Each structure stands twice: as structure tokens, then as C-alpha cells.
């Protein structure tokens, strides 16, 4: 396990943990952006340039904006004091739910055969080959994801467009 991987993982997990602890929403949102940049660094370390730059472009460029706008536009009541669990049963229910999700995840990770031995350097794919793969065997997956995103976009526009009386604007 070489030094770079440790550094990158500390960056990712550290920024995610601190982000959860902070009370200032904007600071935690920006720390999340740091976490996504860490993931992009991990891809770079792994040699997958295309995915790393895509990650930076999409997460650091666009999704961070959506998160920040969401934080800005929703009304923040200043007195956001920490939510103390008022009743014991609520605490128990939270514990059970959290434990269940954690159990499933750990089970899945351990279940998959991961060949940890360093069998030869990963094949470096050029962008042209990635394009070929995407358009070739994985074309269906690409189209479905594209469709999904378009539907999401249209849905967002419909929600955001506040219905206002259509006024004929005499343009002359």
C-alpha cells in the first residue's frame, strides 16, 4: 500500500467526517467539494485520467453548485441548535436503521472476490478506446443514463417554473 494512496484516502475520509461535524452549512458543503476532489485524485492515482477529469468537471464544477444553491435558497433558521434525541425509543430506532445499512454494505464488500494481489499494471486505455467501448457494447447503458438525466432535468424545470399568468408582451 504506497504512501500516495494513504494520503488520498485520509483526505477523502477526513474531509467527509469534518463536514458532518461542522455546524456552518456552507463550510461543510465546501468540505464535501474537497472530498469529491479527493476522489478525483484517487482516480488519477489509479491511472484513469478520463474518469478523474470527468469527476472534477461534474462534481466539483456542477454538483457543488447545486448543493450550495440548495443551502442558500432554503431558509436557514439561525437558531439551528443540535437535535437532541428527545425520546429513548427514537434513538433506538435510529441505531437499528443505521446498523442495518452498515451491515448490508460491509457484507457486500466482503462478499465480492477482490483480487488484492498486484497482477500487472492496469491496462492504460486511450480516450478513443473508451469512446469505442461506450458506443459499442455499453451503448444501451449510456442511452438509458442519458434518458434518466434528461427526465431529471425536465422535472427540475417544471418544479422551478413558478406558474405565472402568461402575459402577452407586445414586443413591437
Amino acid at each position, binding site marked *: 500500500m504506497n504512501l500516495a494512496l494513504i494520503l488520498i484516502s485520509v483526505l477523502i475520509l477526513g474531509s467527509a467526517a469534518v463536514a458532518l461535524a461542522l455546524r456552518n452549512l456552507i463550510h461543510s458543503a465546501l468540505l464535501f467539494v474537497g472530498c469529491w476532489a479527493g476522489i478525483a485524485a484517487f482516480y488519477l492515482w489509479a491511472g484513469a485520467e478520463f474518469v478523474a477529469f470527468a469527476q472534477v468537471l461534474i462534481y466539483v464544477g456542477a454538483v457543488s453548485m447545486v448543493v450550495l444553491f440548495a443551502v442558500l*435558497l432554503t*431558509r436557514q433558521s439561525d437558531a439551528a441548535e443540535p437535535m437532541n434525541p428527545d425520546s429513548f425509543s427514537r434513538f433506538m430506532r435510529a441505531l437499528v436503521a443505521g446498523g442495518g445499512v452498515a451491515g448490508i454494505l460491509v457484507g457486500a464488500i466482503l462478499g465480492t472476490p477482490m483480487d488484492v494481489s498486484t497482477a500487472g499494471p492496469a491496462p492504460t486505455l486511450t480516450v478513443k478506446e473508451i469512446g469505442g467501448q461506450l458506443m459499442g457494447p455499453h451503448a444501451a447503458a449510456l442511452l438509458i443514463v442519458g434518458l434518466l438525466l434528461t427526465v431529471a432535468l425536465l422535472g427540475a424545470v417544471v418544479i*422551478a*417554473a*413558478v406558474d*405565472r*399568468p402568461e*402575459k402577452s*408582451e*407586445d*414586443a*413591437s
Partner: protein
Amino acid sequence: MIGTGSAPSPFGQLSGPTVRKVKDPFHGDLLEVSMGPQHPSTHGVFRMDVTLDGEVIVKLKPVFGYLHRNHEKIAENTSYLGSMPYTDRLDYLSSMSTNWAYALAVEKLAGLTVPDRAQYLRIILAELTRLVNHVCLVGFLFNDLGTSFTPLLYAFREREKIIDLFEALSGSRMMCNYQRFGGCRVDPTPEWLAAASRLVDNFPSFLDEYESMLTGNEIMLARTQGVGRLDPKHAINAGITGPVLRASGVNYDLRKVDGYGFYPRFDFRIPLGDHGDTYDRYMMRILEMRESVKILQQAFRELPAGPIMDPKAKLRGFRPKPGEAYGRLESPKGELGFYLLSDGSPNPYRYRVRPPSLINLTLLEEMCLGHTVADAVVILGSIDIVLGEVDR
């Protein structure tokens, strides 16, 4: 090209003047912004308390008084002649026509006559002032529209030439103090007249170049057409006069209505707008400049010789008989009036200035409702106010 200003946009409703009354949770609270008095685009110390809903103006209250010097109280403690240099400080962009308005009112009060050459000189200087004022306005309007000073500097290049003529004639560029009750103070030299007519002859070529650069510009059309619409009936009732009123289609120009001075001897036309929006107000100024050039050319041709001062007029110890008079003329900004009430003493008993800039601002709020902050700046720019005249 860029849009009619009514289609939805991601940032709040930007349609025409339909203002949302209902308070729905999705929109945040209103934003109180005070624009001015130190604001780069309010033409002097003028403040607007604007209430914004996102980008759209919901309420706009103008605040005046930052440049108030109580010009009228000073005038009541000074002789009639003593107030003449102070009238330059009212509308400091068009001092010659303000001087003429004051002289007109005093001549009406005291019943003085003015020789022909002085009448022609007054028309020449008033129309030259109209050129200076409209060129300044158009330059500043484009500055508010966001060009980085280029049209303003072209406009100021032409203004400088005319102002140098004023300096050569009256002694000062902007504070001319040139008219006297019964005539003018200095008789222009032939070289001055030659230089002035040469300048007036190639003014239209400057206007053509200016118009080709900006009148057809798509961004200009999108930013000004349909912005700040003014209804003719409301304009008349609100006492709005000058190019702003004529842009709404009301045919009321004192040069034709009152026919003061020798204006009836000149043939010139009065341009009228149809939509009363910022674009029409801009075009009114351009077309009026072209008409002023026509008047100037005729005046230079027919300028008679003769005295420039009524021999009977007295310079000092001028005591008009008791009585009152209201003299008004078509200043570049609108109807500029002087209401004088004399009680026989050398100082006026009551000296009142009817400021076109102040009264043209009466409907500023109605014109700006429903538009964005950027439009409010442009609408204010198209009304053409000068704070010296607004606050007096």
C-alpha cells in the same frame, strides 16, 4: 435579438409590470437597496430607495435635497442682475438657455424690448445649448447601458467644440452669464460666427456616424425597446414636458406653442414618438438635434447687424414696477419657467424656478415597476435630470 423581457428566467419573474402580490413560500423576503446618493449612475447626488424582489423592482422612492442651496432665498436677497450668474448653476449643462429663460421672465415683468440681432443670437445660443445637452444625455445613456465610455467620449468630443465656442464668446465654458435684461452682453466676432457655422454644418455627419454605431445595435434594441413605458395621459397630468413627453406622442413644444423670441420665423419640425419607451426618448434627442442644426443654419444665414442691447435697458439700479410675471421657454429638458413677483425694490419679492428635471421625475416609480435594477438605471438616464435644477 436577445429577448422580449417577458419569458421566464431562472431568477424570479422578469415579465412586464405584473407584480406578484401573493406571498408564496418559495420566494425569499424583499431586499431593501438604497441606490445613491454616491452611486456611479445617478447623474449626481440623487437617491432611490428601491425594494427588490429578486431582480424585480417592487417599490421605488426617490429622495431629493442633497444639492439644495436654496437658490430662491439667495435670489430674494440679491439684485435682479445679481441672480443672473446663479441661474448658470441651475441646469449646469445648458446655462445659455437658462439665462434666456430668466431674461425672458424679467423682460416680461418690466416690459422691455429686445433688438433683432440679440433675438437671433439668443436663438443661436439656445439651439447650440440644446445640441450640447442632448449629446451629453445620449452619451450618459450609453454609459448606463454599459459601454465602457466609448460613445460618451465621442459625444464629449463634439460637446467640447461647442463649449469652446461658448468660452470664446461669454468667457466661461459652462457658467456663461451671457444674457442681460434687454439683450446680450458680448457681440460675437465674425471669426466666431464663421467657426460656429462651420461646426454646425458638419454636426450631422457626426450624428450619422453615431447613429450607425448605436441605433441599430441589437443589444441596444433589446435593452431599451419596451422598457419604462409612459402613457401620454398620465404624462400630461403629471406635468412631464420636453422630449420625454413628446416621446409618448404628445405634440407640445413651447417653441411652437408660445412662439417666444423669433422662433415663428424659423421652419423646423417637432419629432413625436409612438411607444413612449426608453428607445423613443433616445431617438427624440437624436431627431431634435437634427432639427436644431436646421434652425442654426437658417439663423446664421439671416443674422442681422445692429445693436445687441436695448439702449433704454439699465444695468444697475434696475427697479421693475410692482407686479408679477411667469416667463417660460423650451429648455433641452422641458418647460423651464421663472415666476417673478416684484414690489418695486431692486430685489425680487418672490423668485420661483419651475424645474423640468424635478417634475419629470414624478412618474419614475410607475415607469420602473416590474423592471430590473439594470432597467431602472437606464430609465433614469433616459429622463435626463440634472441635480442642480432638481434640488435648486
